[in-house]
């Protein structure tokens, strides 16, 4: 059942995973030995940078822009829901959409978030100045994927077109800015490790103290 669509979606997922892995290995480049004498705890600092440091108390981007931060969170929750839906549809296409109402609602909310971010980029002079076509394409692909998941969740969209949307999204994932899905956590690990090695991180103080 839906063999072609499932194969295309799975191939697209494999392509994304392979390219992202290759990009990560290139960036790693065999690693970099640090010859300086360590002063702190890189492990604790990495943990901190992946958890508490992302909270508004430590991160001005979140604290000073609570609305936009919330929109970003909604978008990413929607993406996560859509990915889970897509994986289930790839493995078991005959199953009903996972948590239809909850998933559909969440995904619908994040479509709104995605569209808001797309429009904001188009109307803000500052954002426009720093943007390239990839920013708009990535937002459109993501919003389309979540919209497909929402419609699929509500039972409006069939499994077959949802899997096609999934394949397109996974295909684009490693090519443009969507690869931040990998490099966001990786960069937090790297920055946390360096600040921890030198003894700057972790810290309990936020930006207000």
């Amino acid at each position: 059942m839906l063999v072609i669509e499932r194969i295309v979606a799975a191939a697209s997922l494999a392509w994304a995973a392979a390219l992202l892995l290759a990009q990560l290995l290139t960036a790693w480049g065999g690693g970099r030995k640090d010859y300086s004498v360590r002063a702190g705890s890189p492990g604790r600092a990495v943990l901190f940078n992946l958890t508490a440091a992302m909270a508004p108390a430590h991160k001005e981007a979140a604290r000073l822009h609570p609305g936009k931060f919330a929109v970003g969170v909604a978008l990413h929750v929607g993406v996560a829901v859509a990915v889970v839906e897509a994986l289930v549809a790839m493995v078991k296409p005959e199953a009903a959409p996972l948590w239809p109402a909850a998933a559909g609602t969440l995904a619908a909310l994040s479509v709104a978030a995605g569209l808001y971010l797309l429009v904001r980029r188009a109307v803000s002079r500052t954002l426009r100045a720093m943007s390239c076509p990839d920013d708009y394409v990535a937002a459109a692909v993501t919003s389309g994927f979540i919209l497909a998941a929402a419609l699929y969740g509500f039972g409006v969209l069939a499994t077959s077109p949802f899997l096609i949307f999934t394949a397109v999204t996974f295909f684009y994932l490693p090519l443009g800015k969507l690869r931040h899905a990998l490099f966001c956590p990786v960069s937090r690990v790297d920055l946390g490790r360096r600040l921890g090695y030198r003894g700057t991180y972790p810290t309990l103080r936020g930006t207000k103290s």
Partner: protein
Amino acid sequence: MSEKEQDESTAARVSDPAEVARMAREALRSAARGLAAYHFDACVRCGLCGESCHIYKTDPVPENLPGAKAAKVASFFRRYHTALGRIAPFLVGARALTPAALDELVEAAYGRCTACGRCGLNCSVGTDVGAIMRAGRNVLAAAGKVPPNLQAVVDNQLETGNQMAIPPEELRDTAAWISDDLRLEMGDDDAKVHVDEPGKRVVYLVNPREVKFFPLSLMAAAGVFHAAGERWTMSSRFYDVTNYGLYSGDDPAAAAITKQAVEEAERLGADEIVLSECGHGFRSFRWEGPNWLGEKYAVPMRSVLELLLEYVREGRIRVDPAKNPARVTLHDPCNLVRWGGIVEPQREILRRVTSDFVEMVPNREQNFCCGGGGGMLSMSEYGDRRVASGEVKAEQIRATGAKIVAAPCHNCADQLLDLNKKYRLGVEIKAVVELVYEALVL
């Protein structure tokens, strides 16, 4: 500096455009596998980092947004190191390393960013914009595009051993008259600035500014060392704690500058190198230097702040906070604190040697750059922007109501002197060691 190192650090200053482009691409390739590698692909260009940057806060134009500055460097990375950047550069905003594009990057990398790194800690996703901008400087240095005034300081360091080209005789003369004054002040004939004395426990590196224009901090350090019974010396040849190779992005030059001072300390037979109050000097020697050289140092190294704290804690010096009654606040130099990990020693010292210490907000790793970092002070073409961007720091200082700003960095101290004048703060700028010296109970 060996001939090979001289070649590597100056080879980029060539006029053949093809050679310039080749060297720039080589530097980019190395950055793509270096510190900045993970961060090129992390920024989502959300634009939420403006308020975290002192330059954007004081001049909120799109080109001052941290993400926009990072995007300029990343555009070259995308052109040569991503599939879409090669096939469809327009789609991902990828740009070739042309002479015009490099000239444009000069303004962003040297003129609009001090590589202070504050935005990276506050970025939505965790992009280290400071590392990206330094990768940009690596590329520009390889292409021979370092602003001339900044390059002149690097050249001084390579050619004379110190950034102000002070001859060894002048250092010895200055040390002699500081010693005369110190003996008078301390009432002790043995107090002096020790120069070129082998076999001492500590070799002390200072900012040449202390020798040339602000001898009080060198005198204070000599006084505190004497009071603690320290066995110490300076070298008259290689005593410069600064390293403008960090700022220019010229890693081979930075390595050569590091090497000359470290080898001199070894030659003098020191047990330890102590770095005077200098943010970028501390970061360069303590953290980046071993990696530029590709080896561990034979002689351990630490900040004078760590040593001063040891003296106070172990009772090697006696201090009386009542001797410093005025309100004191503390400036956190980005390279000493955020990138150096020296966060608490200066605070504990100030709590012990002053009687009214107040923090600026925000502080520690979240401090704002004073505006003088990244080599800004040596690039006169960006002078107005430097002083304007310092308004953030000026207002932080004003809010504390302090009369004295302790600045554990001579580079920052120069900027704070300018801010004091421009924003009429009515404060005194002092090194931490000066406050320790003033609190000494002899």
